[in-house]
């Protein structure tokens, strides 16, 4: 042992390795420049911006209604959550109260989106680390959720289902029934995934004790979502910001202990069960009622009225082309818990139909920034596990 250590030190030569931007394990166009001493990472410098589309600049030139489809393209894996985050933020800015039925439906689709996101995360993360079997099992269930989305609004990936003040359309009872049937079966599926990897020695060796970040460091670096909770910080925006019906259903904030890749995996597995339980409770409790808020200055009129009534047609036209003309002046920050962490919107409104400034606080951007902290001093193979464990999407990182 001593010998190999010495000989490796003699032979070791620092070398710079450019990883990405086209690399299957970086989950998008992320480029990392790694300074290596043998196989140990001395310095890691991430380069981002390859997917920069200027969403914040575009938003300043579009009205509030037109910005909504842009938010789909932030985190395209869980576009439903992004839409929700945006709508909740704009509603709080305008001071709109959303009907109860809408809150229930939003919570259901939000949690379905969380399950779909974590499924994709588990599939690709496990594949990166070498546990290949679980990949297709996860995609089977993800497909089921995407089909539910398709039945709901016609789109699978970029859904644009919520609207400011409500939803595009109501759900039908058969859809709710089928989702309920899915949630009855899903806990068994989670157990299947766990039997595949929980006792897999390769999986355990490649995740336990890797990429450790303490609770204090995780907060200091601004991590959020499962990446923060894996370090044992019980911070969940669903408990902090009031939106959806998270205060009316029973659920717990899942936390880890050691802050390593394995604990972040455990947190997400626990979140599967929590989300599943939230969906079930919502479907059991969901009340009847309208789905659009009673705020005609900000919300789109019902489609059947637009097609038959002149006044509503004009109203619809003005809202879509010019935006709400009576938006209050002010600035505020509203965050929601998307699957990847805290997605925040900071609006400066000057009273016109367009946001004066829209800042998107995306979890992936913060997580990529913290990547050097996680992987410096570790082996080059571990960087794959680390990138997977912080769950990034570059569309959201670069905006």
């Amino acid at each position, binding site marked *: 042992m001593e010998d190999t250590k010495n000989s490796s030190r003699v032979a070791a030569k620092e070398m710079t390795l450019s990883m990405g931007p086209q690399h299957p394990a970086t989950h998008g166009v992320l480029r990392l420049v790694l300074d290596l001493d043998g196989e140990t990472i001395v310095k890691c410098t991430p380069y981002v*911006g390859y997917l920069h589309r200027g969403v914040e*600049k575009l938003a300043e030139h579009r009205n509030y209604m037109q910005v909504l489809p842009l938010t789909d393209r932030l985190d395209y894996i869980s576009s439903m959550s992004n839409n929700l985050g945006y709508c909740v933020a704009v509603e709080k800015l305008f001071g709109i109260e959303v009907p109860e039925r809408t809150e229930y439906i939003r919570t259901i689709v939000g949690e379905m989106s969380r399950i779909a996101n974590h499924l994709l995360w588990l599939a690709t993360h496990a594949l990166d680390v070498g546990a290949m079997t679980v990949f297709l099992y996860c995609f089977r269930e993800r497909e089921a959720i995407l089909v539910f989305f398709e039945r709901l609004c016609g789109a699978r990936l970029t859904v644009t289902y919520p609207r400011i003040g409500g939803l595009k359309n109501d759900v039908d009872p058969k859809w709710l029934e089928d989702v309920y049937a899915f949630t009855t079966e899903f806990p068994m599926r989670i157990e299947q995934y766990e039997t595949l990897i929980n006792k897999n020695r390769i999986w355990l060796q490649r995740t336990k004790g890797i990429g450790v970040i303490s609770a204090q460091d995780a907060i200091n670096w*601004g*991590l959020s979502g499962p990446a923060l909770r894996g370090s044992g910080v019980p911070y969940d925006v669903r408990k902090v910001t009031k939106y959806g019906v998270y205060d009316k259903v029973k659920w717990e904030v899942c936390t880890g202990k050691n802050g390593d890749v394995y604990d972040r995996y455990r947190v997400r597995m626990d979140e599967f069960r929590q989300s599943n339980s939230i969906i079930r409770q919502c479907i059991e409790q969901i009340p009847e009622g309208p789905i659009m808020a009673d705020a005609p200055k900000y919300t789109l009129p019902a489609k059947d009225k637009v097609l038959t009534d002149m006044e509503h047609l004009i109203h619809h036209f003005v809202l879509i082309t010019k935006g709400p003309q009576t938006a209050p002046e002010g600035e505020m920050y509203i965050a929601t818990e998307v699957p990847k962490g805290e997605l925040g919107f900071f609006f400066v409104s000057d009273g016109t139909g367009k946001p004066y400034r829209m800042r998107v606080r995306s979890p992936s*951007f913060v997580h990529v920034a913290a990547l050097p902290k996680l992987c410096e001093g570790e082996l080059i193979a571990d960087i794959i596990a680390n990138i997977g464990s912080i769950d990034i999407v570059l569309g959201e990182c670069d*905006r």
Partner: protein
Amino acid sequence: MEPLEIVNRLKTKYLNEIADVTEFRDQVFVSVNRDRISDICRFLHDDPDIYMDYLVDLCGVDYPDRQHRFEVVYNLYSVKHKHRLMLKALIPADNPSVDSVVPIWAGANWHEREACDMYGIVFNGHPDLRRILMPDDWEGYPLRKDYPLKGPADSEYKGFEELKDLHSHDSEWNIQ
């Protein structure tokens, strides 16, 4: 602690620095002069009753008509005490610079780089202030209000300088 209580604490210590306090839908914004921003942030971070340990977000805002053209908005949250305060540093147009808060919150690093990239605000003492989303040789600051959404046709970005050099010198890369 209520946000206004935090503001009162701040006032007893840094009264001359505070320019304005506004409130909108229960969120409190404190505008301060930029000169002692790192002292103020250090105080908000270290004080055991306030303990703003989580820098949620940091971003710039551009107001071309105001005396202080730029604002840097610090979105501070305390995970321990569960309270939030929005702090704004007022920055003049002729010398857009402010002290970096990276020594206090490591997570500020990329947010500050982005604000520099998008608004041209210089963060003094930042460990690695480079462009982050735009290419290194980009001209102008895209999120400034006087920067057009779409420029004239001939102003299209011509590509990385370093790549062009590479193309002209290395025949293997010389793709027509």
